[in-house]
């Protein structure tokens, strides 16, 4: 029913009348706030510490990337998708390439597919490490952040060795990978995997058993599996609520069917379960990487695609399991070298919808914990 935002704009407050006179406090959290993970603005209606209602205001990082796509060629748009979820740029790249390849009906060579899987899973590890560090920092523990970032660095080094960039690494091209694995790639990845397995246990040692951590996360931001489905929530948030849904298993792409891995699920659907799910996902990612490295076939890494990519007129939707959830690309081609339309289904944007439901009735501190557990990236929310 509400067209107008429920909060009062500052200008309309009569002179001499301050917020102290009202019983309900309107707290404007963000867009500059240490723990809204970028430029999310949340307008909270507080009764003391209790959250009576909240509204998310987004768009502070809107760059119109989807529109930019219409003025670029299919190839030129490649680097732009890295700027959606800049903490998991490789996944974005994979989704876009897969969608365009579906339009082109190009089959990526097996080696290219395996290489993609290795890099994407490494990227999932890096993204989850960033999530872990910042989420725990939001709840007040400073130390795990540094441990997570120290280990994330080793993964970024692999990306740097592979394509020269660390964060927005335009890793994949339409048709496969631009580069083959560099010399010593598999040794380095194996070493990172071997080192990381005990490090994940170390994170768990630091955090999982901590009484304060349990008190702060158990029962906080609870959401049921039905609600998750109704909100179209995907990714670890959905799995934390006990729904066994992972695009990698449900609609295998990029030879994910070749690998053995489990889908961890939670039971209570609270912040603690989502934390456990993500930790287990990191272990599963390492499992996938090890299998992919073992079975890495010889051969080319990129299919034969024309220099100028002109997909036949038509449309394609391709979804992948990004670290934050189901990342879908809907691409429409009118037969020219430029996309007619590129539409992204960003997991962060859709998961963020649940913030109001999860945070209402909680305390201010819970809002911060829930924003952290949703694992949003504003680059992806606003695009």
């Amino acid at each position, binding site marked *: 029913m509400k067209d107008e935002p429920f909060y009062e704009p500052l200008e309309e407050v009569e002179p001499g009348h301050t917020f102290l006179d009202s019983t309900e406090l309107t*707290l404007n959290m963000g867009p500059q706030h240490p723990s809204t993970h970028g430029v999310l603005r949340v307008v909270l209606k507080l009764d003391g510490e209790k959250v009576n209602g909240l509204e998310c205001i987004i768009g502070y990082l809107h760059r119109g990337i989807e529109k930019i796509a219409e003025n670029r060629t299919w190839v030129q748009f490649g680097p732009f998708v890295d700027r959606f979820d800049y903490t998991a740029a490789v996944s974005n790249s994979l989704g876009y390439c897969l969608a365009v390849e579906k339009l082109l009906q190009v089959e990526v060579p097996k080696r290219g597919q395996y290489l993609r899987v290795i890099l994407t899973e490494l990227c999932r590890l890096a993204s989850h490490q960033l999530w872990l560090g910042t989420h725990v920092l*939001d709840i*007040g523990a400073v130390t795990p*952040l540094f441990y997570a970032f120290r280990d994330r660095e080793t993964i970024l080094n692999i990306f740097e060795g592979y394509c020269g960039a660390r964060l927005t690494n335009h890793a994949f091209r339409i048709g496969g990978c631009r580069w083959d694995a560099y010399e010593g790639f598999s040794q380095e990845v194996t070493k990172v995997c071997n080192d990381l397995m005990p490090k994940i246990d170390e994170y768990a040692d630091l955090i999982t058993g901590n009484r304060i951590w349990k008190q702060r996360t158990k029962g906080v931001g609870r959401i049921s599996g039905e609600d998750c489905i109704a909100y179209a929530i995907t990714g670890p948030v959905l799995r934390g609520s006990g729904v066994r849904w992972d695009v990698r298993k449900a609609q295998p792409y990029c030879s994910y069917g070749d690998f053995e891995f489990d889908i961890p699920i939670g039971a209570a659907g609270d912040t603690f379960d989502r934390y456990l799910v993500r930790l287990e996902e990191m272990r599963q990612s390492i499992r996938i990487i090890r299998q992919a490295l073992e079975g890495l076939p010889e051969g080319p890494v990129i299919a034969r695609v024309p220099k100028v990519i002109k997909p036949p007129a038509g449309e394609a939707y391709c979804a992948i399991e990004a670290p934050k959830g189901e990342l879908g690309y809907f691409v429409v081609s009118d037969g020219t070298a430029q996309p007619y339309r590129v539409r992204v289904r960003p997991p962060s944007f859709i998961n963020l919808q649940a913030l109001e439901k999860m945070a209402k009735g909680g*305390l201010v501190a819970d809002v*911060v914990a829930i924003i952290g557990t949703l694992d949003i990236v504003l680059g992806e929310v606003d695009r």
Partner: protein
Amino acid sequence: MIQSFLSYLHSNVTPGEAGSLPWVVIYVLLVFLGISVGVIFMNWFERKVMAHMQVRLGPMRVGPMGLLQPVADAIKLLLKEDLAPTGADKLVFWFAPIWVVMTAFCSFIVVPFGRTHAITDMNIGVLFMLGVSSLGVLGVIMAGWASNSAYPLLGSLRSGAQMVSYEIAMGMSVISAIMMTSMATGTGTLSMIGIVQAQLQQHRWFVFSFFPLGLIAMGVFSIAMVAETNRAPFDLPEAESELVAGFMTEYSGFRWSLFFLAEYTAMFGVSSIATTLWLGGWLRPFPNLLAGPNWELAFSLVPGLSVIVLGALCLFRYTRMPRIREMRPEAVGLAVFGAMLGLLGLVQLLPGVRERVQDIFWFTLKVFFFMYLYVWYRTTFPRYRFDQLMKIGWKVLLPISIGVVIATALIAVRQELFALVWR
């Protein structure tokens, strides 16, 4: 006049008791200076310890091993623009940091750094300290209210509720320690010096008295004092990830640094109470067990020797520093600092000086044990939520401390009790 000035040196009481005004002034200045240097050192120490716990180096650039970083920060803060929000209540906004600093420093009037090293001795010393240090919350509330901003207001309200709740548990555990003072002599005391002397007479620190009651009381106090000074994991009033900087959000520059100073001074203050009440204040370890002139001499040499060891460490680091031109000033600075520490240590070894210094040394060492705990907590624990904080204060700490008080009282009068029962 000079005669009366010098005659104080031969008296064996605090300047306040001796009624010597010039010495009171000197002691006030010394305490003020000492606390300020302590805060500066604590700033560096906390960042270094945190850094090493967090697999990083911490400040390394300004001065050798970042020793001059706090100085650089202080200069930065002084040069920063001093802003006040448009709708702020200017007077209260201006007064709040001053009030906080004032109360934090006031409580040091009765802190005994040694038998003679206190500004004065009051017969209500502990009450005075608790009272004055709890007045600091007024400044926090003033700051939050005067800022005319939502985050500071929430922060100061949290702070008010938190400090009031934890003071009760704090007070209860203090009561149990005060009851212990009356054990050997039969006359209890609230004077800070008297409490330490009672521990000397009873031949044990109160933390070991009525085992484990003293230990529990100290545990309750040392948890409550973390909440009282708004430090992690109870740092809700300034919870960075929730309230930006809590009641300090709108403060900048010098006023902000006053809050910073007050926070660390308050930490020193409550640590001093804990040290005095349970860890024997200025008493050296085993004053009765390892008695005798030889032991006396050995223990009185410890302060000087440890300072000399520190200086030697600095000199050792100097020899290990890379011999490049850019590092030269730092290396020389470190060597000079080490040499100065060594000289200071030598001075402290002189007879006459060493007896006076060693009380302060042991007291400071014990206080820094608590200060180190503060840093340790901060790197280890996530932050409590407000309702959980209240729950701990009222439902856990308060019952425990009341239980300790009752148990201490029952044990204290056990002979009379037995007599009553058997009659």
